[in-house]
């Protein structure tokens, strides 16, 4: 008996290790044990009038920034404290970790008031309800519009941008004299150097997806199309369009003839470029310091064939649970959005400022070149499905380079997988949600009604294939209302007279009876038959 117990116990321990690997993130959120921030902090600051006790700050703002920017903010914080007796607590956090840590801290009310994040993380933070919209007031006109757009979600501005980053085409001035006009020219120039033994590869890049996005766009490829308002439309995946396939074919041809490496990574490409063995190199501000130190004679250029790179915008966001929202906004608009601070952020960050007065005065040739290369850039999509896009895009290209799949087949596979993730699993379902559903097996009470995803009332194609039918359902006497909804959601729905988003369709039963429905997909009209 004891042996069995021991067996179970050892199993428990084994599985707990396993669970720790997966559940780690989940349990971590319960760790900070602080009283809910609703009651306690309301009293403390008012009890200390700002005018009487200058030793005690009137309020404290907590800010999470990365190490490179911290000194700039510390200086501003000192000024702010001296002038307004408000302490700004600058806490240094690794830039890549800010979002994850914020997601853990913010729900408990312990998060910072202000964080800095790249814009492609903003969507998730908004969806999680952790950040507050902000109003830049008169200062709004001082920011680059694309940078503001990147932080605008559902028509509301959620961040104050400070920098824009994108990749540019670096070239070695010793090896390249004429800048190529097209990608074909670039590869040809590189191939010639390679044949002369002067170059290892024609072109270096970190990864064949993000870094080479400008090449795909030159050929007419795109990731997501845009809707009428200029927002990305996740339903329009362009990964397997003609241009994209051509671009991958072009890349593959150049891998096959040795011009490009299929296994290259950012570090390898950087080393080859700084060693003078790579005429062209596509990279961003993060490699600029290393290239400068290496003293390789480099130049920077826009992309051939008018290629458009991805752009990323970095900005400040406000904690929705902050007790100091008004103060934090004032601090950002009055103290951070100034020529002085913004230009210091630009110098330290190697990235062009998103603040117009600073951006317009850029004299540094490298920053200027990044700005020009990014003039036609497209903001990186911030929708959650990007996780699936990166993974499948990279996989497709790997498979093509390894010769396992043809470009069209690989990209079609990848696009299908991405569409599967984005599409909802109920695509194609036709349903009649309404107030009768709790009698048709969709649940009890009100919760069982008006469910467009309820399988029990889903319609089937009729025998002649021209309409959809459901029922008969046994219903009690009474008044009922229904609608037609497609794909298991309310996104597309039809009401009276087949009008999209129209009024509810009503019917009544004078006595208990059977009801069946028939829906015409051409006219969108629902016919209710009562027995």
């Amino acid at each position, binding site marked *: 008996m004891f*042996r069995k117990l021991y*067996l179970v116990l050892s199993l428990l321990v*084994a*599985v*707990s290790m*396993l*669970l720790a*690997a*997966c*559940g780690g*993130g989940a*349990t971590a959120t*319960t760790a900070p*044990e*602080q*009283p809910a921030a609703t009651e306690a902090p*309301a009293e403390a*600051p008012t009890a200390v009038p*700002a005018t009487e006790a200058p030793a005690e700050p*009137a309020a404290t703002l907590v800010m999470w920034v990365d190490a490179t920017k911290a000194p700039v903010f510390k200086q501003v914080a000192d000024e702010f404290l001296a002038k307004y*007796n*408000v302490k700004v607590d600058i806490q240094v956090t690794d830039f890549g970790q800010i979002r994850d840590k914020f997601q853990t801290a913010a*729900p408990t009310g312990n998060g910072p008031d202000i964080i800095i994040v790249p814009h492609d993380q903003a969507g*998730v933070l908004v*969806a*999680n*309800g*952790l950040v507050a919209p902000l*109003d830049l*007031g008169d200062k709004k006109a001082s920011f680059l519009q694309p940078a503001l757009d990147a932080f605008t979600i559902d028509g509301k501005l959620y961040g104050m941008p400070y920098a824009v980053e994108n990749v540019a085409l670096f070239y070695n001035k010793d090896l390249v004299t004429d800048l190529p006009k097209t990608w074909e020219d670039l590869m040809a120039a590189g191939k010639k150097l390679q044949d002369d033994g002067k170059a290892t590869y024609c072109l270096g890049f970190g990864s064949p997806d993000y870094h080479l996005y400008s090449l795909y766009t030159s050929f007419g490829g795109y990731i997501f199309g845009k809707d009428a308002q200029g927002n990305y439309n996740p339903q329009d995946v362009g990964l397997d369009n003609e241009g994209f396939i051509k671009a991958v074919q072009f890349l593959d041809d150049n891998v096959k003839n040795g011009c490009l490496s*299929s*296994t290259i990574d950012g570090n*390898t490409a950087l080393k080859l470029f700084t060693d003078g063995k790579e005429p062209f190199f596509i990279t961003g501000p993060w490699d600029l310091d290393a290239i400068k130190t290496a003293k390789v004679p480099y130049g920077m250029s826009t992309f051939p064939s008018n290629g458009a790179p991805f752009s990323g915008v970095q900005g400040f966001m406000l904690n*929705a649970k902050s007790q100091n*929202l*008004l*103060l934090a*906004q*004032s601090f950002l*608009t*009055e103290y951070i959005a100034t020529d002085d601070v913004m230009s210091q952020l630009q110098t330290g960050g190697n990235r062009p400022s998103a603040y117009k007065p600073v951006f317009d005065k850029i004299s540094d040739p490298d920053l200027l070149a990044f700005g020009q290369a990014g003039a036609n850039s497209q903001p990186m999509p911030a929708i*959650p499905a990007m996780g*699936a*896009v*990166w*993974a*499948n895009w990279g*996989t497709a290209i*790997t498979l093509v380079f*390894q010769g396992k799949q043809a470009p069209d087949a690989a990209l079609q*596979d990848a696009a299908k*997988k*991405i569409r599967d*993730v984005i599409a909802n*699993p109920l695509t194609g379902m036709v349903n009649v949600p309404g107030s009768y559903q709790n009698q048709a097996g969709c649940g009890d009470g*009100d919760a069982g009604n008006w469910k*467009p995803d309820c399988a029990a009332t889903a319609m089937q194609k009729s025998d002649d294939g021209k309409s959809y039918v459901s029922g008969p359902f046994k219903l009690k006497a009474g008044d009922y209302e229904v609608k037609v909804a497609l794909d298991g*959601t309310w996104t597309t*729905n039809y009401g009276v007279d087949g009008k999209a*988003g129209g009024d509810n369709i009503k019917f009544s039963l004078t006595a208990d009876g059977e009801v069946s429905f028939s829906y015409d997909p051409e006219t969108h009209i629902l016919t209710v038959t009562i027995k």
Partner: protein
Amino acid sequence: MTANNPVPQPKKQAENPFSVLLRLFFLLVFDLGSGWFIVQAVQSGYLQLAAVVGVVFLLVNLVLLLPQAYAYRWMVTGLSFLVLFTIYPMLFTIYIAFTNYGDGHLLTQQQALAVIEKETYLPKTGKSYKWTAFKAADNSYALWLIDPDGNTYLGKVGSALVPAKPGDPGIGQADSNGIPTSIDGFTRLNPILAATDKELPNIKFGEAGKTIQIRSPSEAAELKPRYAYDPAANTLTDQENGEVYNDVNGTYTSRTSGKAIVPGYRAVIGFQNFVNFVQSPALRGPLVQILVWNFVFPTLSVLSTFSLGLAIALMFNDKDFPLKKVFRTLLLIPYTIPSVITVLIWRGMMNPDLGIINHLTKTWFGFSPPWFSEPIWAQAGVLLVNLWLGYPYFMLITSGALQSIPADLYEAAKIDGANSWQAFRNITLPLLLVAVGPLLIASYVYNFNNFGLIYLFINGGPPIVGATTQAGHTDILISYVYNLAFASGGRGVQYGLASAISIIVFFIVGTITLVQFRFTNMWEEVSKNV
């Protein structure tokens, strides 16, 4: 000599009063600490955690105060940790598996409602103003308001806005922005100074029904709360257009337009995560292929690490081996370096362009193994790195176990004319397996879920052609699931789904382990020999 003669009782050792006091003191410290923790946890709404700590609290107190529980005193620390760090996380994981916890549903219902109720809107008839705050000695405020047409007003709490101009009685002259420099009885505040009062945005200026609140440093407006919550029906009503939002699995969704209010909240959704996993393309996908590799990988790993470890241990078991200690120490080094570092170093050494290993093979054999692109080479690479990481453990274990095999057995075998292979086959191996058998199984289970190695070395690659979901030739179940739930699944982080899948994986691992224990009868053998 009657039957009354008492049996001598084992004399209970009288406890040193000092040690009793010390024990009570530590118990007091512990009780205070955990009591405080429980209060904090309850206040923050972490009831489950509070309950678990409560159980530990009771357990420790009972054991330390009841004389009958004396024997458990030495176990109580271990048991407490078991409850806190093993059983509680397991129960928590099981609970999470039945919720939609993850991106979009991170907050509790209370927290999400607090965020939603903060949303405001400007009614069509409402006006917005630029504001300047003035503060009186009694800490009350007055607002100087400028509407978009340039009209100016003075707003106070509880009374309608009064049209006012700089220079009016009691109001000072205008500065360059048209804002009076002073108002009698009030001090003008700079916007930042005004903002240091957290209460300012909550103050409602103007007459009831048309109150004005400060929304941002530049704007005060006749704002109204956008959503009204009905706790009885658990619905939200949009005050602007009357649209009703019903609670659907933790997201307030409109019946008529299908719009959802952000954020959703963490709700219990029953078996939905399990259903989602079963229905997802993941199962129709390359699951069988991944499962096969998931069995092959730990089997080969255990066999290879055990064989190499045993071979080295046998070598060192020879008394005449020179510099034994030096070599043994050197060979232990891989075990002492964190595997995270080792794996990354191997990754670098196997780089097809710059790696030292590929450089050497190219020079010697004219062939550069495609470690990261060919499935069979990738699998070989993973096994090779795991061999490097795992053999020192078995070398250590078997070295110890070899010492415990009595030398006279070998002597007897020698007399019977056995050669060294026969001695190894019939004496060393069987006796060794009895001792290290359970460890082999432990190693198997560990490698079954060796996420760190697979993820760091190659992240599951190279990709499987035509797979319906993101999957690679070296993916094991746990790394495949990680991708689905966190990375390339594409719906953000889904703790609920991840927990559900890890429960399913538990049953798989549990079954394997049980079968192996039964099959090998390992415990019976051990107990026979003890």
